């Protein structure tokens, strides 16, 4: 079903704002998405009407707050089709989720010579935590190469799985290239050798329907702020068999059963991993974002964005001296590009003056930039609220780049 785009755009207050004195053309949703009024209202309502600390008070206001917080957990469970609500752990964001697994699985159990398999297109958040684990345990980081199109080299991947591999940690969709990795096949091949798989879902969660049970991934991690929810909240989904075996991540309040100076016993899942007062308002806002996405329908969002990606790709191909970086067959609505003779930073500044917000730089994927021998790219990324007319403004603004910097 086509999206009711006028209604959606009216739902997002910030789209009425200006950027550099021009109507805002927001093409940076892979960085962070804009928020619907219902999400803003939910966090506002929480602080206005329900604010109390969760899980620890007897009065009714706190009961309401706890209910809102735990309802959001159920909504997340349903949204990603998890089996149990206790497999849903609230964290700060994707980065913290990956660090949690790195700490509790990697640092706690990996031995010298064990191998951790990642890919050449990872975000720094799925590189650095594992490097730290390697430094601490003597494990070795192995990197699956990618092709010139920006697709994972699956032959290399299959050959790199071996008896020493303890974890495959792979980006589901690339933030810098848009590539959607063949995660079903990745997981099947790893599971055939009893290797668990972690998926960094930061860039896939808002663009396609996720079913963690059908995928059979062992961990799936994502951020609220990239799926129309508030910043400062993320989700770690982990199969309970793994989470049960994990040592504590952070110690503190709410993650314990009983504390004495001699011995402490820890709370059950998922609370064992939620020490201290969590970002309750953020979690409630995430719940509202899930309601919003469910109302529109992930399939409808997927079709809308894919149509936009196709349209934008065709328009980009006609721009003189422009090269798209990342031409995988399956992509989320992300287009990275460079223009001959003009540095991405200068392109970003010119686009900014036209009201167009894009990301320029290395996209927290320096090794990937190195792979393509580029210092940086310009990245236009689309969300459910973007329209073809905004692609047209972007293309017209690129002509302005040429006016300033001359033709190739």
């Amino acid at each position, binding site marked *: 079903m086509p999206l009711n785009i006028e209604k959606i755009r009216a739902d997002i207050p910030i789209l009425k704002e200006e950027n550099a004195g021009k109507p805002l053309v927001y093409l940076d949703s892979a960085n962070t998405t804009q928020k619907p009024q219902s999400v803003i209202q939910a966090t506002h309502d929480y602080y206005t009407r329900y604010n109390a600390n969760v899980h620890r008070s007897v009065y009714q206001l706190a009961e309401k707050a706890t209910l809102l917080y735990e309802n959001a957990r159920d909504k997340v469970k349903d949204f990603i089709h998890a089996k149990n609500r206790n497999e849903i752990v609230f964290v700060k964001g994707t980065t913290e989720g990956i660090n949690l697994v790195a700490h509790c699985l990697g640092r706690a159990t990996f031995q010298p010579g064990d191998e951790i398999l990642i890919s050449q297109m990872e975000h720094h958040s799925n590189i650095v935590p594992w490097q730290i684990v390697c430094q601490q345990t003597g494990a070795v980081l192995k990197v699956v190469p990618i092709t010139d199109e920006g697709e994972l080299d699956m032959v290399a991947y299959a050959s790199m799985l071996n008896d020493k591999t303890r974890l495959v940690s792979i980006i589901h969709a690339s933030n810098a290239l848009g590539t959607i990795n063949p995660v079903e096949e990745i997981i099947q091949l790893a599971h055939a050798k009893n290797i668990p798989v972690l998926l960094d879902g930061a860039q896939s969660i808002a663009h396609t329907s996720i079913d963690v049970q059908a995928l059979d991934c062992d961990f799936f991690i994502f951020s609220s702020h990239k799926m129309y929810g508030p910043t400062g909240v993320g989700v770690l989904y982990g199969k309970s068999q793994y989470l049960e075996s994990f040592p504590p991540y952070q110690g503190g309040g709410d993650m314990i059963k009983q504390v004495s100076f001699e011995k402490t016993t820890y709370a059950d899942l998922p609370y064992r991993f939620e020490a201290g007062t969590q970002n309750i308002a953020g979690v409630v806002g995430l719940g509202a974002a899930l309601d919003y996405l469910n109302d529109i329908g992930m399939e409808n969002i997927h079709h809308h964005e894919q149509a936009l990606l196709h349209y934008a790709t065709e328009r980009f191909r006609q721009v003189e001296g422009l090269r798209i970086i990342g031409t995988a067959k399956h992509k989320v609505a992300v287009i990275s590009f460079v223009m001959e003779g003009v*540095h*991405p930073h200068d392109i970003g500044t*010119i686009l900014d003056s036209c009201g167009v917000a894009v990301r320029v730089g290395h996209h927290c994927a320096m090794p990937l930039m190195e792979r393509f021998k580029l210092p940086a790219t310009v990245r236009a990324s689309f969300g459910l609220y973007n329209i073809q007319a905004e692609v047209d403004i972007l293309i017209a603004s690129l002509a302005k780049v040429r006016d300033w910097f001359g033709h190739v």
Partner: protein
Amino acid sequence: MSDLTELYQALIIDHGRHPRNFCVSDHANCVLEGFNPLCGDRLTLYVTEKNNVIEGITFKGEGCAISMASASMMTEALSGKTVAEAQEIFKLFHEMVTEDSDKDFEALLGKLSALSGVTKYPARVKCATLSWHTLVAALAHSDKPVSTE
């Protein structure tokens, strides 16, 4: 004049596309790398300094128009200056691109004042100052690469 016109003056575009003194120098006695991790700008400065006088500066590297132009214009402006003079010019330059000052930078800095438009673009200040920070460290005979972060 719009902010953009002020930022990308013809002189900047020209120096950005055709940087001056853009080569490796074999006889330089202070060589240092500067790096802006945020945008990937990277350059190496080759400074020939004798008896506290900068005899010449060359550079190699890659970056945006602002960082290339700033480095290129710096090599021209500081050639023949004493180290103390160079440091004084850097102070003024830094003030020009970071502060809302009413000083007459055109009179004080000459051609370098073409970069004054950067002040309206806080995100671009690091592009304009990378070569300068690298120079100051090179003159102090630092061997540690300079990073703007």
